[in-house]
C-alpha cells in the first residue's frame, strides 16, 4: 500500500482537514473532537482513525483519556507536497532560459 497516497487522500476530505485545523492549537480527546462536529461520533472517530493511521496524528494516554495532537513532522511533509511539482516546473523553466540565452 502506498502510504504517501493515503496521506493525500486523508487531507482531501473536508472533515479530516477540519480535524487537523482543530488540533493545530491544542490536543483533544476523541469525544471533544466529535463534539465539534454535527456528524455522528462514530463517523468522526473513523476520520480520526484514518488520520492516525497516516501518522498525521499522535496520541498520549493521560489517565483514562487519550489525547490526540498533530504530528508536526508528518504535517510538514504534507505541506511540502507541492515541492515535486515545483521542481518539475523549475527544471523546465531552467531549460527554457538556457536555450533562449543562447539567442540573446
Amino acid at each position, binding site marked *: 500500500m502506498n502510504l*504517501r*497516497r493515503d496521506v*493525500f487522500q486523508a*487531507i*482531501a476530505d*473536508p472533515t479530516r*482537514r477540519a480535524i487537523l485545523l482543530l488540533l493545530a492549537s491544542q490536543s483533544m480527546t476523541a469525544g471533544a473532537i466529535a463534539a465539534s462536529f454535527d456528524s455522528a461520533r462514530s463517523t468522526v472517530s473513523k476520520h480520526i482513525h484514518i488520520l492516525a493511521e497516516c501518522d498525521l496524528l499522535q496520541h498520549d494516554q493521560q489517565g483514562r483519556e487519550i489525547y490526540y495532537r498533530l504530528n508536526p513532522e508528518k504535517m510538514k511533509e504534507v505541506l511540502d*507536497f*507541492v515541492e*515535486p*511539482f*515545483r*521542481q*518539475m*516546473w*523549475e527544471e*523546465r*523553466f*531552467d*531549460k*527554457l*532560459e538556457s*536555450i*533562449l*540565452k543562447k*539567442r*540573446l
Partner: protein
Amino acid sequence: MERKTQIHTEPDKQDLLITRDFDLPVELLFTAFVEPEIVAQWMGTKVLKLACQRHGAYLFETTGPDGSIHLFSGVIHEFVPNQKITRTFEMEHTPFPVQLEFLEFEKTGDHSSRLRMHIVYKSLEYKNQMLRLPFAQGLNLAHNRLQEIVQKRI
C-alpha cells in the same frame, strides 16, 4: 537561496499559480510559447500543431521511456503577443479532464521578465492528483531504473 519558480495554492482551492522570473527580455521569453522549434526543445516534445491566435490550437506528442506515445492538446482563447495567452490543456487518453491556463507575461526590466501561469482544475481532487503526478512519475522512473539495473545483473 531565492527560489526562481514559486507555486502558490490553497489546500481547499482547485487552482494554483506558478510564478517564474527570467533573465530574458519579455519578447524573447514569449517566443518559448510561440515558436515550434523552441517549444519542442524546452518541453521535450514533438510539436504536431501550434496555431498561436484567437481560436487557434496546439497538439504535442511525447514518447515515454517505455516507447509509449502521449498526446497533449488544447485550444487558444486569447492571444496578445508579449502579454498573455489563455488556453486549455488536456492530456489525451487519460482520466484527467481538461484544465484552463492563464499565462501572463510581464516586462520587469530590459533584460528581465516574469511569467505567471494561473491553472484552474475541474476539482480540488484533480488538482491534488496533478500535484502528485511528478512524484508518481519519479517513482516510476526510479522503478524503471531499478529494473534496468536488475536485468543487467541477470
